[in-house]
């Protein structure tokens, strides 16, 4: 199972006014051997609540370093902290690289790639572009990069450098929402219609082997529709979506006003692998989390009330199961609950994981 590791911040550079590129040195370099286009999931406590955020790696594989681009989102605790407070020498925690926003590379291949990035959606694409151009000498890459205006283009200079470095193999089309450009087609939003226009003369869509799209939802839908209309199959289109609204702060379960009083404490007896242990805990924690907080090796998998790995039987007392997508009615009647979704209601609860 994926675990969090420590990384040290070795550099923080502003790319545009509200975005930073953070360079990280992992303690366990092997665990952070990434594939182009992957992302890191960070965690940090804000006011006692753990917040997790995922950011794409923007470095190429061959660069031998880990860099992520973090654009500040209005009201976003993590991105604001990264942009305003994060400093060289700080330690952060992240899970090893994850994600499948890539296709396997082959130095002998001569493929044509088409990328679409909207705003900070450039970060994984930059990693893909850098790596692909370096590993596949016969590859050609066209990037359609959408931004509000010139001042919000992340990695603008880096992209220019790449163009010069890989002369004739890499092309960028900047589409700006508000700033006028010499060519009318390059102003506005990247919609299905805009793509259709681009495919007429600017992009050789017929010879595109793989397309990558990373941007906001409406943009992804429009581009995907245009690509499909021009003959690309689902297998040829790679998506990466980091929704504009990543889930907010970990939602604490609503508890009554006197949450801290003894009335909201429960005594729970667990039977697990033949042994019984009794603990006291707040009623705002799930049966599973209480067990784990007390070093009991209670089984669980999805923690979403789905896989039923965490199932146990309530022998005494009452719990409230807030979600159940796994247990059938007859199991619930027998007293089975999903411990990851169940909270103590009575002051004493007896559960058995062995039944």
């Amino acid at each position, binding site marked *: 199972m994926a675990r969090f590791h420590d990384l040290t911040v070795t550099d923080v550079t502003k790319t545009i006014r509200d975005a930073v590129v953070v360079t990280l040195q992992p303690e366990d370099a092997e665990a952070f051997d990434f594939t182009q286009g992957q992302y890191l999931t960070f965690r940090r406590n804000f006011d006692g609540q753990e917040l997790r955020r995922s950011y794409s790696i923007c470095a190429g594989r061959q660069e031998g370093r880990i860099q992520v681009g973090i654009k500040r989102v209005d009201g976003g605790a993590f991105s604001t902290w990264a942009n305003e407070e994060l400093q060289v020498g700080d330690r952060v925690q992240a899970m090893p690289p994850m994600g499948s926003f890539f296709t396997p590379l082959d130095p002998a291949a001569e493929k044509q790639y088409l990328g679409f990035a909207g705003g900070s959606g450039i970060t994984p694409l930059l990693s893909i572009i850098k790596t692909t151009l370096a590993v596949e000498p016969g590859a050609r890459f066209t990037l359609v990069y959408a931004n509000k205006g010139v001042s919000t283009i992340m990695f603008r200079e880096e992209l220019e450098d790449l163009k010069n470095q890989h002369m004739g193999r890499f092309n960028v089309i900047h589409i700006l929402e508000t700033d006028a450009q010499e060519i009318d087609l390059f102003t506005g939003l990247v919609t299905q219609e805009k793509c259709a226009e681009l495919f007429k003369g600017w992009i050789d869509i017929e010879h595109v082997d793989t397309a990558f799209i990373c941007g906001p939802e409406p943009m992804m839908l429009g581009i995907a529709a245009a690509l499909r209309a021009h003959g690309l199959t689902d297998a040829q289109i790679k998506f990466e979506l980091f*929704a504009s609204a990543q889930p907010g702060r970990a939602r604490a379960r609503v508890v009554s006003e006197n949450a801290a009083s003894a009335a909201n404490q429960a005594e729970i007896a667990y039977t697990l692998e033949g042994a019984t242990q009794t603990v006291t805990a707040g009623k705002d924690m799930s049966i599973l989390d209480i067990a784990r907080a007390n070093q009991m090796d209670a089984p669980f998998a999805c923690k979403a009330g789905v*896989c039923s*790995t965490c199932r146990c039987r309530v022998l005494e007392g009452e719990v409230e199961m807030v979600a159940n997508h796994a247990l059938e009615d007859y199991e619930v009647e027998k007293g089975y609950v999903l411990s990851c979704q169940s909270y103590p209601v009575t002051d004493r609860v007896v559960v058995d994981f062995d039944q």
Partner: protein
Amino acid sequence: MDMSIEDYLAQGGVLSNPTNVPARYRAELLKLMTSFVDSELAGAAGFADIINQGPGIAERMAAARIVQEKTAHAGRVLRVMESFGVNADRYANHHPWTARLPRDADIGAARGDHDMRLAVFNYPLDGWTDAVVMNLLMGLAVGVQMGDFQKLSYQPLAEVFRAIAPVEARHGELAEEGLVRLMGEGEGDRILTSVSYWWPRVAASFGQAGSPRFKALNAMGLRHASNEAMRAQWEAEATATLDRIGIQPG
């Protein structure tokens, strides 16, 4: 410019990582994956016991290959589940995958107490011929299901299904080849008995017609064809395949 994930999905949008899947979507996706993994593991485990009953080397190799590949496919989907926090090692071992109910148990489409395998995988195989028949009918059903799964809105999973679909299809072909041989060996009556045993059980695995869940799953891009459409497709394909082999079920 802002669009909810629900609207995005309803319009055919694709999700690519666990960080921003809505809770309900996550639940349905995990349920779909556990059902597939449990069915593959239970199917492979049941078939493993049959390997030695294969009448010849080729048959035993085919059965062993099916066991190996179904287990591998479960592993690939478990990798996707792992990205949602599932402990894959524990998961792979937390159920007795060989457990079966009595042959004459009548559980309809209900799943068992311990896992999410399709109901059909709770029935025991009754010898080599029976196993080949089950593998043919279920293999065709999996083929129909794979057609739908490849269009899933969760791209990492759709990609796994695209990769394993041809291999799963080959399992059905191996079963068909096996049945042709068994027909030539005068097993016709036994085949017919097994077909009538497995046909309703495999048919039930497609779920109820007019399922209210379909609409919700369809809106999330997790299902595209309805239960009844998939069952009709399977019935047509299974009938045609049996006809090719020379079997006309009553």
